[in-house]
């Protein structure tokens, strides 16, 4: 065996150019598999991470039809209070369609929403300056607002200066009572995580002229029993509306699951495409090995005349093919890892070659060597020593 390996290395080294060209197919194939799979999964991880930061324990409820039956905020709070084992927090979620004004300028990217005092806890944010929205604010419809760090800095220069100031949303003026701690350490940007205004949901509802609140965010105590939480919620809503077309319940974790399965599919697909190039590389290996057998017919004849059995000749050629493709595979893994790092940096995502991709592509390249080396090898082994000796 060891001898066969030495012989294979010698033969590969003896035909440097040819061996390199054979390997090239495998190198490109393996590198492509690794780069594609790793970069895609790296990119997707980034997406998932940003998605997960939105809160995997959140369930959003949307009521689309308020005409026939109504669901009041009190009903929802009561429902959540009845199931303290399942749910932790609830807040109405009211969008405000008026833009935020900064002098004469409009800050159209700023997200303006009405929430309850629980929203800070749902987001797991802390206050930077001042206070959060309070229960009393919501009940008394006080015209107060909590700003995001970016919004406060853009409007007033600093969180401290923003305190007590008035902001204008549409025709309404609200007093700033607090600023939320900066969330994005890297950059403050328009429309980013730090660009928002929260106001009491009751105020927001009034500004939007909508009597009923149609959207809620509820958080679960644990992410393990999301299904039970959504089921209970749906049962409750069905009892109210008697029609499951009137509302939607969406758990973020479901979205995450969905996203994950999409990612898996995408990786598999791209891996498959790269896999095809590996297959083509395999055919290249077979081709070269067939040429090699033909070229070395005489050598095979001599070896057989001196007593080499079929299995020995077979082994020689299979090992040579396997070694060629393994070396190609290893070079491909190195190039693929380097390429993944470089592309990851260029794209600004953290992409690392996954162990699975490396293992798979290396396995495939060795497998290709064995598989496609087998046919030429068995042809070599079957050569008649006399015919082989006579060939020039």
């Amino acid at each position, binding site marked *: 065996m060891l001898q066969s390996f030495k012989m294979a290395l*010698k033969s590969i080294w003896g035909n440097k150019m040819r061996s390199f060209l054979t390997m090239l197919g495998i190198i490109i194939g393996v590198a492509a598999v690794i780069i594609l799979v790793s970069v895609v999964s790296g990119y997707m991880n980034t997406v998932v991470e940003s998605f997960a930061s939105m809160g995997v324990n959140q369930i959003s409820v949307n009521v689309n039809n308020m005409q026939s039956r109504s669901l009041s905020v009190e009903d929802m709070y009561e429902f959540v209070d009845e199931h303290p084992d399942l749910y932790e927090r609830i807040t109405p979620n009211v969008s405000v369609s008026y833009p935020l004004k900064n002098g004469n300028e409009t800050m159209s990217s700023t997200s303006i929403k009405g929430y309850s005092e629980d929203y800070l806890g749902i987001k797991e944010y802390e206050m930077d300056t001042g206070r959060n929205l309070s229960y009393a604010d919501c009940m008394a419809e006080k015209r107060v607002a909590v700003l995001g760090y970016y919004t406060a800095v853009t409007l007033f220069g600093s969180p401290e200066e923003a305190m007590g100031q008035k902001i204008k949303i549409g025709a309404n003026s609200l007093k700033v009572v607090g600023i939320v701690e900066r969330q994005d350490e890297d950059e403050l940007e328009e429309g980013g995580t730090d660009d928002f205004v929260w106001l009491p949901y009751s105020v927001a509802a009034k500004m939007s002229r909508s009597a009923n609140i149609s959207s809620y965010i509820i958080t679960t105590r644990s992410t393990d029993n999301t299904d039970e939480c959504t089921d209970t919620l749906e049962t409750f809503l069905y009892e109210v509306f008697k029609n499951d077309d009137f509302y939607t319940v969406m758990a973020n974790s479901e979205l995450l699951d969905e996203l994950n399965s999409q990612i898996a599919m995408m990786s598999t697909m791209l891996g498959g495409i790269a896999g095809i190039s590996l297959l083509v590389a395999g055919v290249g290996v077979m081709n070269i090995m067939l040429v090699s057998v033909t070229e070395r017919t005489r050598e095979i*004849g*001599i070896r057989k*005349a*001196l007593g*080499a059995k079929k299995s*020995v000749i077979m082994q020689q050629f299979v090992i040579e093919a396997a070694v060629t493709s393994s070396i190609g595979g290893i070079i491909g893994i190195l190039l693929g890892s380097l390429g993944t790092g470089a592309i990851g940096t260029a794209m600004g995502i953290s992409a690392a070659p996954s162990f699975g991709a490396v293992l798979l592509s290396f396995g495939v390249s060795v497998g290709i060597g064995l598989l496609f080396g087998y046919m030429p090898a068995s042809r070599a082994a079957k050569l008649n020593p*006399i015919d082989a*000796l006579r060939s020039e």
Partner: protein
Amino acid sequence: MIKLPFLKGKEEEAYGNQDPGAPLIELRDIYKIYYMGDEEVHANDGISLKIWRGEFVAIVGKSGSGKSTLMNIIGALDTPTEGEYILGGIDTSEMTDDELAEIRNKMIGFIFQQYNLLPKLNILENVELPLQYAGLGPAERKKKAMESLERVGLQNKWKNMPSQLSGGQQQRVSIARALAGDPSLILADEPTGALDSKTSKEVLNFLKKLNDEGNTIVMITHDPSIAMNSKRVVRIMDGKIMFDGDVKEYAAKL
């Protein structure tokens, strides 16, 4: 005695009739028939021949006489269509390829006209090749191969590649390779075919010396003058033995 693994359990049967008086090679009514379209070509047409240990036999014949076919059968490179070939008491007529490979490896040392050295291996590795196929370990292989190279006087060139040697030297390497495995039979196919007359003489003298040391040699040649170096001549024509006798007898007939 040579050990052949595939004979496991049947050694007695195989070696049973191997008394010292029995021939090393026994060909019993050998036919080798090729089919060219509808036509049958009898390359060997009923050849019977016995060769004893220690003989130096030259098989002579023109090209197309069937001597190469005969050599292939004696060398266990091919099996006869009909008839039996018994080598060292073992019937090889019905053997599989792998069994024949083992017979070639353990019992026959080949010397070819074109030397047939592997160009990418050095001299030592070339001589080691049959020993490697016989399953010897690296140390033993090297020792035996060096001894063999010493016998042909090329021990100092063991690192060289075949292409760095002259034709005569290359043929000596191939003789060393043939001797390395201590074969029962040395089979030389036109051993001087590619050499000038001076080196031819050296090679022939070397074969004579090997024969004097007790080795059995069968040499195939088309050249009657080369055959004169042997002790016994078998002349083949049209697939049949036309003459089989002492070299002096053969010389007298020329």
